[in-house]
């Protein structure tokens, strides 16, 4: 039995189910309680679980992250919301220097089952400071797991997995996908973190993408299918840990790799995928691995420009074609 659910509903349900299951789970963030969340991602949870467990904070992201760390240290399972992921800038120290390193620096004395949810991504005209794919800021910070759900099912499953996980997990929820719909099982699976989904099988080229780009890649694959091109679409679902095995095995078959991402290519997770793949499977590739990403600029506001910045279906199709033609 599956039902249809929006990404937003999936996020809410994941938190509700986690709270139902485990009293140590609580939520904190700006306007998440009385207002149900700036993106309505905690709608109804205050009413259902009460003010002990659903907590509004001041505009103090450092305090939010710190509270999550300290509470996790005491064995609670905080789920903190950073409204726009870009605001990770004001609490970067807490995430990268404290949360990520605490267990290591104490020789394993502490375990930090903290989940940080962050509103990610572009596409709605929020401008340069409210549209970034912020997972890329944390790639060189060992100690964090990073989930990037694209579908309602993954929005549910990865958030449940994050909350259950004994380690810090950043869950980036894509703002532009909140109203998108998809199926969810009546008793949905909670997937392990670090396992990719092969979204579509194909023999000609492997295309890796997350979040909004995964959806556009699926559209691109449809376009190319008409021409008889078999595109294998893989959504890693977590960029840390990254499922190099699944991607690698696919490339072993297709011998071609395209990564599509909603960010500049330099310093991106896609660059790391390419570097790892080249080291491990140099002989597998018959064409240069291609990164299709945003321009090397901040994200422009104007719709006319933002739509050019974000990889479009056309640009993805074109990239795949060039890779096939090599």
């Amino acid at each position, binding site marked *: 039995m599956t039902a249809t659910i929006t990404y937003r509903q999936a996020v809410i349900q994941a938190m509700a189910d986690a709270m139902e299951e485990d009293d140590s789970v609580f939520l904190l963030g*700006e*306007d998440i309680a*009385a*207002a149900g969340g*700036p993106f309505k991602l905690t709608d109804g949870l205050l009413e259902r679980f009460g003010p002990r467990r659903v907590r*509004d*904070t*001041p*505009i*103090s*992201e*450092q305090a939010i992250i710190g509270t999550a760390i300290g509470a996790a240290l005491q064995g609670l399972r905080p789920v903190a919301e950073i409204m726009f992921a*870009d*605001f990770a*800038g*004001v609490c970067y120290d807490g995430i990268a220097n404290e949360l990520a390193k605490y267990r290591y620096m104490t020789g394993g004395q502490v375990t930090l089952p903290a989940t940080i949810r962050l509103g990610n991504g572009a596409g*709605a*005209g*929020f*401008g*340069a*400071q*409210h549209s970034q794919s912020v997972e890329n800021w944390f790639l060189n910070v060992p100690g964090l797991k990073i989930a990037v759900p694209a579908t309602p099912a993954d929005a549910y499953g990865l958030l449940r997995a994050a909350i259950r996980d004994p380690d810090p997990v950043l869950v980036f929820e894509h703002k532009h996908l909140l109203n998108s719909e998809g199926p969810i099982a009546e008793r949905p699976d909670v997937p392990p973190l670090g396992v990719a989904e092969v979204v579509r099988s194909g023999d000609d080229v492997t295309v890796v993408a997350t979040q909004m780009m995964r959806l556009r890649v699926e559209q691109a694959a449809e376009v190319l299918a008409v021409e008889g091109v078999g595109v294998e679409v893989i959504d890693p679902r977590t960029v840390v840990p990254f499922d190099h095995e699944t991607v690698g095995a696919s490339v072993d078959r297709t011998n071609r790799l395209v990564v599509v991402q909603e960010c500049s290519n330099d310093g991106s997770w896609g660059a790391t995928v390419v570097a790892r793949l080249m080291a491990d499977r140099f002989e597998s590739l018959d064409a240069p691995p291609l990164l299709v990403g945003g*321009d*090397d*600029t*901040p994200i*422009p*506001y*104007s*719709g*006319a*420009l*933002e739509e*050019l*910045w974000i990889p479009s279906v056309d640009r993805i199709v074109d990239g795949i074609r060039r890779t096939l033609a090599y």
Partner: protein
Amino acid sequence: MSSKTAGSRLAADVPVETQLEWLRTMQEIRSFEDECHMMFARGLVRGSTHLCQGQEAVEVGACSALRTTDTMACTYRGHGAVIAKGAPMDRAFGEILGKAEGLCAGKGGSMHLTDMTVGAIGSFAIIGGHLPIVLGTAFAEHYEGRDGVSVCFFGDGSTNIGAFHEALNLAAIWKLPAIFICENNLYGEYSPIANTTPIERLADRAASYGLEGIQIDGQDIGLVHDTVAEAVARARAGDGPVFIEALTYRYKGHSRSDPGLYRPEGELERWMERDPIVLHERALVAAGVDQARCDEIRAEARKNVDEALARAMSWPDPAPESRLEHVFA
């Protein structure tokens, strides 16, 4: 501070003609924001927008105490402040509409209106982000031996973020010519201030930095002007920063999607009874200005807004290649 029904006064040493221009500017901002509201409702604009109807007296009163060469930084709720500092409305509309001729060439948007030519150095969308930046603009005045000042607007909710603390502290210890103006409109997003802040009078936070904190009625443009003018004079004279808390109210929701349901019943209506434009007009009339003159000015203001919007609408989108410009000099 003044009671809930008190009127406003004219500024002490400012010609009435000038104060009539404040009426015009306040009305222009009001109409500008009303147009924005409608554009969003009609889906003409992307992203979000944060309107300032009800807060005009703070922005116009404060900016009227500045020179063009003084700098001013404000928040995403900054249309009013940027217009008050002198930015042209057509290019402000143009920016919100994402047009090539927008103030920021379409790259900034509603939350980032900037016009360096009039000292409107930026609208900032990360809470607290601009407070430290104002330290630098103010410092440069000292460094260069000039007597310019920097004004910084921010909201009540923004006084709880770390950058606020660092900025006030450094400004105080370096005695910088910076005027920090907190527009206390009672809410940060959907949260009433009492839910996020353990004290009522935000001006009291000035004491942590050895500064005087002044709380004023932000609906009284004459009072705002006089208070800021005095602060500016002190700052120009080298006496360091001032922290002013102006009590005000936003008539609309936090951003475009917010109907403002968290407000207690009657609150909005009570504040609208002390509408800053109406109060100022009454003060002008009481001082002998013809009502007809005021009506005329407000009508002109509305017309200016209409024309500005029409111009902005007629402008083209930015050229595709333009998106690659302006990363580096």
